[in-house]
C-alpha cells in the first residue's frame, strides 16, 4: 500500500535518509524501532506530507509525493497528492495534539464535518460510538485539559479514525504517558490491528512490537539496518548493530 523509493532527506547540511527503500503491504503492521534520533518520526511525517524531502518518491495507493529536487515536482499536483494521502492515512502523535479549545466531541467531529462534509448530527453519533468503543463515552463534553494523558491519546486515536482512514501512522503514541496509562492506549491500537487496519507504528515498546507486528524495521542514523518478521528480528538478529540495540533494550 505504501511504497518508499530511494528517499533522500536532509536538514540543512545534515543528511538523514540517503536512499531509503521500504514497502508496506495492505493489512500489515509495521513496527519501527531504533534509537532516539534515528529518523522514525521524520519518516512517518514524510509519509503524511508533513515534511518535505529532497529526493525519491513516496507512493500511497498510487498517490505520489516526489522530492522537492525531482523534475517531476509540480506544485498543484503535489498539493492534490498530499490531500489524498492525508485522507487515506490518519496520524497519532506523541504529544496527542488535541485541540484544547474544543470539547472532546468537537475534536472528533470537526474534520469529518468540515473536510468530508459529513452531516454534523451523523458525525456526532459516529463520534459517540467511537468514544464508547474506547470507553470514553461519558467524556464527550469535557475539554482535553480535563482528561488524563492516556484518555487524551485515546481521543486522539478516535479523532484520526473518525476520518475513516485506510491506514494509521502512530508516532510513539505511548512515550509521553505515565507507565500505568500505556496499556490502555496499546489496547486500543491492538484492537485496531485485529480489525485489519494497515498500521505503521514507531515505538520503544518492544514487547508490543514483537506481539502485534507482521514486520519490524530497525532504523539507525536514517538507515534501515535490518528488517524482517518479528521472530527474525527479536530472536535471531543478523546485524551486530541490531543485536547491540536490542540487548540494550531487552535488559
Amino acid at each position, binding site marked *: 500500500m505504501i511504497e518508499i523509493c530511494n528517499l533522500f532527506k536532509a536538514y540543512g547540511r545534515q543528511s538523514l535518509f540517503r536512499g531509503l527503500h521500504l514497502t508496506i503491504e495492505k493489512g500489515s503492521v509495521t513496527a519501527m524501532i531504533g534509537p532516539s534520533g534515528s529518523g522514525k518520526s521524520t519518516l512517518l511525517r514524510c509519509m503524511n506530507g508533513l515534511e518535505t524531502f529532497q529526493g525519491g518518491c513516496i507512493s500511497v495507493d498510487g498517490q505520489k509525493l516526489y522530492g522537492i529536487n525531482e523534475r517531476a515536482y509540480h506544485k498543484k499536483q503535489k498539493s492534490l497528492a498530499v490531500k489524498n494521502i*492525508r485522507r487515506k492515512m*490518519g496520524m497519532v502523535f506523541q504529544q496527542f495534539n488535541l485541540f484544547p479549545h*474544543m470539547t472532546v466531541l468537537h475534536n472528533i467531529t470537526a474534520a469529518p464535518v468540515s473536510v468530508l462534509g459529513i452531516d454534523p448530527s451523523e458525525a456526532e453519533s459516529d463520534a459517540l460510538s467511537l468514544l464508547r468503543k474506547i470507553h470514553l463515552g461519558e467524556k464527550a463534553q469535557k475539554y482535553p485539559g480535563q482528561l488524563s494523558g492516556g484518555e487524551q491519546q485515546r481521543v486522539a486515536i478516535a479523532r484520526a479514525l473518525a476520518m475513516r482512514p485506510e491506514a494509521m501512522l502512530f508516532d510513539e503514541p505511548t512515550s509521553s504517558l505515565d507507565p500505568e496509562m500505556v496499556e490502555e492506549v496499546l489496547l486500543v491500537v491492538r484492537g485496531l490491528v485485529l480489525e485489519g487496519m494497515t498500521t505503521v507504528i514507531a515505538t520503544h515498546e518492544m514487547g508490543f512490537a514483537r506481539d502485534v507486528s507482521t514486520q519490524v524495521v530497525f532504523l539507525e542514523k536514517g538507515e534501515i539496518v535490518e528488517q524482517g518478521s518479528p521472530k527474525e528480528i527479536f530472536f535471531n538478529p543478523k546485524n551486530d548493530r541490531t543485536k547491540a540495540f536490542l540487548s540494550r533494550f531487552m535488559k
Partner: protein
Amino acid sequence: MRRFHDWLIFMAMQHNPFNIRSIVVLLVCLLVLYFSQINAFASRDTLEKIKNSGVITWGFDAEGGAPYVYHDPAHPSKLIGFEVELVEAIARELGVKVQYFQNAWDSVLLSLLRGDFDIALNGIEITPERTQSVLFTRPYYVYAEQIVVRASDNRINHLEDLHGKKVGVLYNTVAKRMLEEMGDVVVSVYSGQVEPFKDLSLNRIDAVFVDLPIAAYYTLPNPQLRMVGNPVGEGYYGIALRKEDSALAEELNKIIEKLLRTGELKKIYRRWGLWNLSQEKLFLHEGLLQKYTESLPSFSEKAPIAVTRFLPTLLKGTVVTIGISLLSMILAVVLGLILAIMRLYGNAWMQKISEAYVEIYRGTPLLIQLYILYYGLPNVGISLSAFAAAILGLGMNYAAYEAEIYRAGIQAVPRGQTEAALSLGMSGYMTLRRIILPQALHITIPPMTNDFIALFKDSSLVSVIAITELTKSYSMLAAASMDFFKLGIITALLYFGMSYPLSLYARRLEKRLRSYDRNL
C-alpha cells in the same frame, strides 16, 4: 516648590491609570497640585525682579507662527516676527535683556499665572474673560478679522456671505466666536495657522477668517488666495501680566506710549506690512479701551461658570473620539491580522513588505504620519477628508503594533496543533481559522486591550488635522474659561468612562475564551 510639583506630576504619571486605586492617587495628586498652585503664584514684585536680574522673561509660542514670532526659514535657529522686535524694543527701554520662554499658546496664560515667565505677549486678544484672570497693559496693536478666499471664488464678498459655508478659524479667537454667533456657519477649528490656508487651497474649506496680520502674511505672497471685504470686528492685542503686577503694567504702558510717540512702533509695524489707519487708535487714552472691553459680547457671566454649560461641547467631543477610535480599531485589527499572516505564511517578498510596514510605522511618530496623510498626500493628487485621514492614520499606525501582537500570539500556539489539523486533512486556511486563531486570540487579548486603551487617548492627536475631539474640546473650553481644573477632571472622567468598560469587557472575554483551561 517647583521641585515638589514635578515630583507630583511624575508620581501621577508613574501609575497605570487603569485601576481604581491609581485613579484615586491621580485625583489626590491633582488636588494637591491645584491648591499648591494658588500659593505658587508669584507674589514678589516682578518689576523689581526684572530690574535686579537684568532679564525679562517673555512667554510666547513660536508654533503659532508668522508674523508674530516664528523661526526664520533662512536661519531656523533664530526667532523673528514683529513681536520679537517689539519685545526687544521694550527690553531696551527697560535696560534689560530678553529671555525667551517657549510655551504652547493654549496654556500661555496659565503658565504666566504659574510664574513661568514675566510677560505673555503673543497676539493675545484683550477679552472680558481674560481680564478676569490676568492684567493687560494698554494695547500694542489693533487687529481686525479678515476673510480670505480662493482667488477664483466669487461667491464670498462679505461676512454675511459666510452663512452656510465651511470656514476655517484659529481656536479661541474672536473670529471663531463671531462665526459661531452667526449660527449656521460650519466652523473648522485649527490650532496651527498654516493649515487653514492649506485646506483653503485644497478646496477643503470655503474661506478662512483670521486676524488681519495672519491673513496678510499668508495671502499676499500667494496668488491663489485673496482677501475680501473690509476687516471686521476690531480688537486689541495687549501684554498679559499677573494681576498683582500693576507696577510692571504702569512701566510697560509708559514704554508703549513712548514707542508710539517716537514712531518706533510704527517703524516696526511698517516693516511687517502691518501698519494701517486703525493703529492710530493706539494713541487714544485708556478710557476708550475700558469702554471697548465692556462693549464686547461676553459669554461668561461674573458668576462661576456652571459645568453643565460645557457638557454639551465635551460630549460632542466624546462622540467624535469614540467614533474615530472604534473605526480605527477595526482597521487596525483587520490590517494587523493581514500583516501578521503575510509575515508568517507569505512568500519571501510578502514577508519583506509586512516587516517593512511594521518597522516604518512603529519607527516614525504618529503625528508626522497624520501630517503626511492629510497635508502631504494632496501633493500627489490624493485629498482625504479630515475624518478619513484621522481613521487611516490611527488605524494604519496601530495595525503595525497589532501585527506584532498577532504574530507573537500565533507563534505561541504549539506547532503540533498545525500538524494535527493538517494530518486530519484540513486545509492551511481552515487550520488557521479553526485551530490556530482561536487559540492565539486569548493570548493576544491583554496586549490588544492595552493598545486600544492607548488608542482612545492617542486619538487626541488627530486634532492637528482640524478634528475637534474630546481633548481638543477640553483645551478650547479650558483656555477660554481658564478653568483647567474642573474641566480637566470631567474630561479625564469621560476618557475613563470610555476605557474602563473596555478593560472590563476584555477581562470577561479573556476568561470566557480560556474556560477550557483546567487551571481556571
